[in-house]
């Protein structure tokens, strides 16, 4: 047995308000680190695109702009349903919250499904570096780098979304169990923050990969 003084739930906080402040600030700091994680990739993208602009135009025209745009709409809608879930939780509307959370989860899954379809198309078109890359046109090396960045960046984004979907799933269970109410719903709020962050990353990825010289 672990002695009581060492038990896991060390009561380090004075009160609920302090706990809430700490959790919220912790989430924001975490998101700051995430910005810098993605920042490396955006910085790398900027440099490589400056060096290979023509290749990026070619590469961008090999992405499926229809599916990309559809996915953007799906993800933006999911941010709306997430915001409504947080509002529901803060008002203590348990059933409504569950509904919005489930809808968010489904939209997240829809995004991942569409993304999988896109990846499959790109595999068939042989523009997947290492696995299947058979693009022979002009600027072949730059196009390779374009798709390398495309898969690394959208892949990392998809990974974040998978984690987000899992966390929203946990929130659905916890909400149905009655963990949250007007007094205590920080986990839902923080899940919302994370979800919106992942959404914002996509808002940058979308024009950088789908819309280069396409307008």
């Amino acid at each position, binding site marked *: 047995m672990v002695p009581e003084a*060492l038990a896991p739930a060390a009561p*380090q906080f004075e009160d609920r308000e302090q706990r809430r402040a700490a959790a919220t600030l912790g989430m924001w700091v975490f998101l700051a680190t995430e910005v810098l994680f993605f920042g*490396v990739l955006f910085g790398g993208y900027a440099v490589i695109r400056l060096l290979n602009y023509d290749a990026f135009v070619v590469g961008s025209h090999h992405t499926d702009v229809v599916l990309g745009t559809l996915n953007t709409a799906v993800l933006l809608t999911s941010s709306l349903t997430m915001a409504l879930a947080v509002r529901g939780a803060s008002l203590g509307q348990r059933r409504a919250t569950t509904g919005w959370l489930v809808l968010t989860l489904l939209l997240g899954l829809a995004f991942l499904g569409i993304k999988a379809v896109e990846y499959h198309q790109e595999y068939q078109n042989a523009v997947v570096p290492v696995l299947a890359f058979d693009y022979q046109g002009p600027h072949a090396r730059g196009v390779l780098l374009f798709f390398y960045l495309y898969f690394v960046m959208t892949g990392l984004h998809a990974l974040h979304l998978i984690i987000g979907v899992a966390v929203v799933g946990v929130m659905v269970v916890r909400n149905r169990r009655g963990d949250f109410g007007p007094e205590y719903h920080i986990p839902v709020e923080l899940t919302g923050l994370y979800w919106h962050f992942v959404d914002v990353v996509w808002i940058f990825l979308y024009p950088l990969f789908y819309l280069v010289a396409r307008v």
Partner: protein
Amino acid sequence: MSTVGAAPGPSYIGVSYTLRSWLTTHDHKRIGLLYVASITFFFFIAAVAAAIMRLELVTPAGDLLEADTYNKLFTVHGVVMVWFFLIPSIPATFGNFLLPLMIGARDVAFPRLNLASWYVYSLGGLFVIITLIAGGVDTGWTFYTPYTTMFSNTHVVAAISGVFIVGFSSIFTGLNFIVTIHCMRAPGLSWFRLPLFVWAQYATSLVMVLATPVLAMTLGLVAIERLLQVGIFDPALGGDPLLFQHLFWFYSHPAVYIMVLPAMGVVSEVIACFARRPVFGYRFMVYSLLGIAVVVFTVLGHHMFVGCQSMYSGMVFSLLSFLVAIPSSIKVFNWTATLYRGSVSFEAPMLYALGFIALFMMGGITGIWLAALAADVHLTDTYFVVAHFHYIMVGGAVMAYFSAIHFWWPKITGRLYPEAWARFAAVVMFVGFNLTFFPQYVAGFLGMPRRYHAYPPEYEVLNILSSAGAAVLAVAYVLPLIYLGWSLLRGPLAGRNPWAATGLEWQTASPPPRENFSHPPRVNGPPYAYETERGDGP
């Protein structure tokens, strides 16, 4: 300045003696000690690598080691010293132990995350050990591309994985400290009543949280590039090696301040205590800590003065690098001014702290030389650079680490250490350090390049001096292990506050109980309420 009742019950050590209670603890004090054990282990691994290199360099010919082995040794030395000793040295040990005590909290904000950080650190360490056993890595601690992505035949990916993983432990620590300092301060402990050690941890944590993700992602990309042979850093693949260097130094220059900012915090506490005076210019000390934390993110280009960066960005980075000298000099000036008219006494922590100031100044001034464009063309990649950053990292950070060990030893263990031995070790360390690294300034200035196992005979005398110094330094590092070990078992009991120091950590028992304070402390005044004997306090 505050009121704290008696602390009944067992100390944090006496709560339980089982191994399991240590490995599953959420107590910030115990986690601090877990880190002490781990970083001491890695310190000696890296120190042995350095010792073998110094042995090789006693003679100009490469007679002890193959060139390849030498390359692996300096890589191991750099990787382990930087990421497994210096980065966590003061924050993860004394920061963990002292931060909640100094702000009157029961623990850090996220104790489980805190324990997780130690496990993540250990996992990273495991990768490094695997790398070593498998045969090492020879890229240098900087992992420059395209050597890492294309040419090296050693275990680059394993080493990179270790550094990648250990980065998360510093992100966890930094995040935890920021939130703890914001949210967990005792009633009455406003921002400008915080001890400077806490401010230093705050500035350090900001740098940790903002810089480390960049390193992690960059090294991740290097690993992908090496494994898949497609990527953005290797010119043969269409990438840009300068991009790697910018991203690497975006972390690794600020990393120097992850090592030195906490050291500055330690020195501020120690100088105030042993001069019996409040730190001179407290607010300037705070602003200079924060100023350093900001400016260091803008100086990365001074590592690429000769690395095909444009001349104009070189000029801008040179100017920005000079700027770091301003907050650094404010600190040295204020420490000196704190001593002025103080009742100075020279206990071991104070000797180490004064050593820090002297060596940090030497390292800082030579840093100005290196930040000057024209001088750097001559000095870059010579032993001058090696001497410069060792004055900051070993002369600065490690001296302060030893100062902290001695200053807070009575608080952590509840026992006093033998003062005479400690002073002796402090002096030996200062002498040994200078004997090791001052000749390297000279050798570098005369043009001796770094990272070679053999060298022209005209540098022989300087290298013999340096190696002799390393032997003295080794004695200075082993001595504390012996007398502190003795103190742990036989040292006289310390009592709450053997130094008559201010600060909340001195108002609870030594060693402190699990929950730190029996009553939550209240703070009614500024820190460092020392009164000098002349009565000319604040």
